[in-house]
């Protein structure tokens, strides 16, 4: 019997296959090169014009960094307040939940009208875009904290500030982090999309500019950069989540049956 390959092996095989097809399909003419330039040409363009890509990427990174600051800072603050205070929760949470469902991209022209077509409008737009998932997950994280834990802490004499720093914050970190990962991804999308719509700089702007002159290899070069940026962010965010959520992931593993069993001698078994 053949052993079933590990999921990670399968993932790598699929990725390799995609890359091979990317090279072969345009080369053999199955897909016209205008639609999809071969992988090798795309890489060649990236290597040749790396200065241009690097300088536009730095603009995008700068905008993403500030937008994330807004999304995370304001999102966590607003989420903590609405999650923690019943009055705010009842007033604001339904409003924000419905706003989250609105495609905010349609408001981007208004952002350019208010903040110009430079970095400022991108930062604010993407910040608002990423704000909602951060805020909503933070609020949910705080609302769903086990009331028994707070009761236990109070019985041990925890003051309100101690309840916040020693129970509410650690208990909501896993949820908040997953919100940050989602919000961060949306911020990147927000920056790139707004660069594609109206701007004079950034990776998204490169996509638009080269598309108008039908330079497919350069368009795909920019797309590859955006993909790499998203993947890098997601990998980083997951790594941080894994590190801070030892107890959570371990709990999940236990449910799946890989329980780290407690080894005690039957004679002296501690129950």
């Amino acid at each position, binding site marked *: 019997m053949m052993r079933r390959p590990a999921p990670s092996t399968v993932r790598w095989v699929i990725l390799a296959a995609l890359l091979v097809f990317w090279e072969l399909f345009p080369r053999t003419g199955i897909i016209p090169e205008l639609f999809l330039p071969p992988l090798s040409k795309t890489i060649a363009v990236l290597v040749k014009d790396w200065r241009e890509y690097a300088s536009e990427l730095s603009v995008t990174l700068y905008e993403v960094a500030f937008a994330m600051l807004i999304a995370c800072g304001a999102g966590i603050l607003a989420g903590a307040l609405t999650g923690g205070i019943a009055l705010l929760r009842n007033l604001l949470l339904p409003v924000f939940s419905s706003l989250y469902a609105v495609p905010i991209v349609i408001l981007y022209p208004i952002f350019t009208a208010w903040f110009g077509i430079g970095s400022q409008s991108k930062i604010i737009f993407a910040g608002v875009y990423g704000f909602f998932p951060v805020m909503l997950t933070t609020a949910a994280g705080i609302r769903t904290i086990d009331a028994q*834990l707070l009761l236990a802490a109070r*019985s041990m*004499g925890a003051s309100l500030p101690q309840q916040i720093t020693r*129970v509410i914050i650690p208990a909501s970190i896993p949820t908040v982090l997953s919100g940050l990962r989602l919000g961060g991804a949306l911020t990147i999308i927000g920056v790139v999309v707004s660069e594609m719509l109206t701007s004079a700089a950034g990776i998204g702007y490169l996509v638009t500019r080269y598309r108008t002159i039908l330079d497919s290899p350069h368009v795909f070069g920019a797309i590859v950069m955006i993909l790499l940026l998203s993947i890098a962010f997601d990998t980083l965010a997951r790594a941080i989540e894994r590190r801070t959520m030892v107890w959570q992931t371990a*709990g999940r593993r236990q449910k799946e049956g890989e329980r780290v069993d407690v080894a005690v001698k039957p004679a002296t078994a501690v*129950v």
Partner: protein
Amino acid sequence: MTANLSVVRDAPARAAIEVADLSHTYAGREGPVPALTDISMTVGAGRFVVIVGPSGCGKTSLLMMMAGLRHQTAGTIHIQGAPIDAPDPHRVGVVFQEASLFPWLSALDNIEFPLALRHAPREERRARANDMLNLVGLQGFGARYPHELSGGMKQRVSIARGLVQDPPVLLMDEPFAALDEQTRMTMGHELLRIWSQTAKTVVFVTHSLTEAVYLADEVLVMSARPGRIIDRIAVPLPRPRTYEMMATDVFGRLRERIWQQIRKEG
């Protein structure tokens, strides 16, 4: 001098817990919910008192009030001679039904938690928590996280945490309810060992009549809501208790008497 001392010794020891004319009414969604009426009870220092009663009769509410976690609408509670109006971990330790351990802290850090709240020095914390870990029979398990412990072990950690500030009174709200029968018996036995080593005053809520008789000096039976105390049953079985006692007539009769009282309340 000697006269004075003997006066002190002969004076009846003040009860550890005194509840007088306590009533409580919740402001429920559909009007007021009377949960407890006219509860009066006295628990002498070092006694083990078990409360039984139908679900929803107010046992948890009563315990929360004794712990200072909730305010009663009427009546008074004195613990160690002073009224209780806020949680005081130096007088009262609480063990909850759900182990309610902090999942992000190791067993040892969980036990240290109350000491960390009052910023006790690190070495003192460690030493004290390790003593507690040994007391509850978990030596060597301090570094484990709650999800790496069995249900019984988690409750051992909870008990250790409840005792770490050395409060004279320990309140336990159905602490073994989630455990399987065998583990539950072992834990009851272990609790009695810990109790005899530490000389605490214990108030213990349970649904299990066997557990009630096995553990208690005295069993208080509560009525259906609004809870009143409808019977007080002294358990004359000698200590230390053994599993064999469960098969005796005395044990069976006590259990039967409690059952009859509760059944009437149905």
